[in-house]
C-alpha cells in the first residue's frame, strides 16, 4: 500500500503550499517551502520502493545470491534515491538563501510581514 505514502506526500505538499499562499510572516513562508521540499523527498523515496525488495547495495547480497543476480533481481530504484540525495542538498541551499534574504528584509523594513514590504524605500 505504497499509495498511502504518495497521498501523504501530496497532503504535506498541499499543507506547504497553503502556508506559502496564505501566511504573511516571511519565516513561515520559508517553512512552507521547506514542507513542500520534504514532500518531494517522501514521494521520491516511496517511488523507489518495490514490494519485497532489498536495498540497491551489491555488497554482501542476501540469501546466497551473487551480486550480479542481485543487480538483475528485485531491488529498490537507485536513481530515485540519487534524486532524493540531490534534492536534499538543493533544498538546504535554497532555504539558506531565502533565510538570509529574510534576515536582510527584517533588518531593512523592521518587519517580517510580507504585506509591509511592498513599498519601495531608499
Amino acid at each position, binding site marked *: 500500500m505504497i499509495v498511502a505514502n504518495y497521498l501523504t506526500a501530496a497532503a504535506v505538499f498541499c499543507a506547504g503550499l497553503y502556508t506559502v499562499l496564505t501566511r504573511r510572516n516571511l519565516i513561515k513562508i520559508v517553512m512552507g517551502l521547506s514542507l513542500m521540499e520534504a514532500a518531494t523527498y517522501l514521494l521520491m523515496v516511496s517511488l523507489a520502493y*518495490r514490494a519485497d525488495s532489498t536495498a540497491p*547495495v551489491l555488497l554482501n547480497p542476501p540469501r546466497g545470491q551473487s551480486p550480479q543476480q542481485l543487480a538483475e533481481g528485485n531491488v529498490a530504484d537507485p536513481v530515485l534515491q*540519487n534524486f532524493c540525495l540531490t534534492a536534499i542538498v538543493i533544498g538546504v541551499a535554497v532555504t539558506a*538563501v531565502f533565510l538570509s534574504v529574510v534576515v536582510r528584509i527584517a533588518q531593512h523594513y523592521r518587519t517580517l510581514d510580507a504585506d509591509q514590504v511592498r513599498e519601495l524605500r531608499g
Partner: protein
Amino acid sequence: MSRPEPAEEEPRRHTAAGLLLVLSFAAVLTAALVGIPREHAALPPIARYALVTSLPKWRLTEPVNEVVYGTRGFDTFGETFLLFAAVMSVIVIARHRESRHGYFGEQSAGLREQAKADPAEGATADESAARRAERAERAAAASQTPDDTPLGAPAPEQAEAMTVVVRTAVRLVAPVLAVAGCYLAAWGYSPGGGFPGGAIMVGVLLLVYAAFGRLMIARIVRPGLLETLEVAGAAVIIGTELLGLVLRGSFSANWLPLAPPQTIRSGGIIQLFSAGEFVEVGTGLAIVIFSLLTMRHDWTPDEQPQPEEYRG
C-alpha cells in the same frame, strides 16, 4: 499566578482563495499520484542499467554512488554548482560592511577598551566599584578555555560554553562522528558518499561550537580558510570531470585505473568526485550557517525621525 497567554495575532491573507486553490491542486495531485506506478511495477530501464553496469563497468558495489557520481555525474555536477551559487549568494547577502577575517569576535574585540574609563577623566567612586564588580564577574567567564572556568562560577549568562556534562559528552562523541563522516566518504563502495559525509562534518563543527563556544572553532571557522577550501573542492570536481573529456573523449568519463571491488579506490573517478563533494558540501554548509549566525545589522542606519516638511 498563571496568566492566559494573549492570543497571537497571526496575519494571513486570502485564506478562502488560498484554500480553494490548494484543494483543487490537491485533487489534481491525488488523481495523478493514484495513477503512477506502484510497488509491483518493474524497475525503469535507467535504474536497471545503473544496477547492472555498476559492478562490471565501475567495480563499485554501491549503485547509488555509481548513479550519483558516475552514470548521472553530469546531474550532480550541475547540482554542485547550484549549491556553490547558493553559498556565494549567502556570502554576498550576509556580508558585513567592512571586510572581516573571522565570522566572530571582531565586534567584541573593542569591548574591553570600551569598558575602560576614559583615563583623562578619571572615575568616581561609584564607577570604580561597579567596574571592580564587573571585572570580578568577567574574570570567571573570560578565561582562555571553558575548562579553566571553575564549576559553579557566577554569571552564567556570560558563559560561552555549556556545562561540563555537555562538554564531556561532546568530547567523547565528536571524534567518533568525525571519523564516521570521513568513513562515509572514503568507503565509497558501501552506502554513503560525499554528501552525507560532508553534512556530518558540519554537524561535528556545530556540536563543538555549541558546547565550547566560538574560541574552540575560531581557528578553523574563518572565511579565508573555508572559502578557499570550498573553491578548492569545486576545482577538484571540475578537474575530475574535464579530464574525462581530455583523456577519454567524454565529459565525466572515467580516466583513473579501476581498483578491485570493495577497496577504497574502487570506482575510479567516482571516489575523486565524492571527495571533492565531501569538501564542497562540508565547507559550503559551514559557510552558510556561520554567515547566517553572524549576520549583523550594519547595512542600514537606524531610521531617523524625519522632520514633517520633508515627508513625501
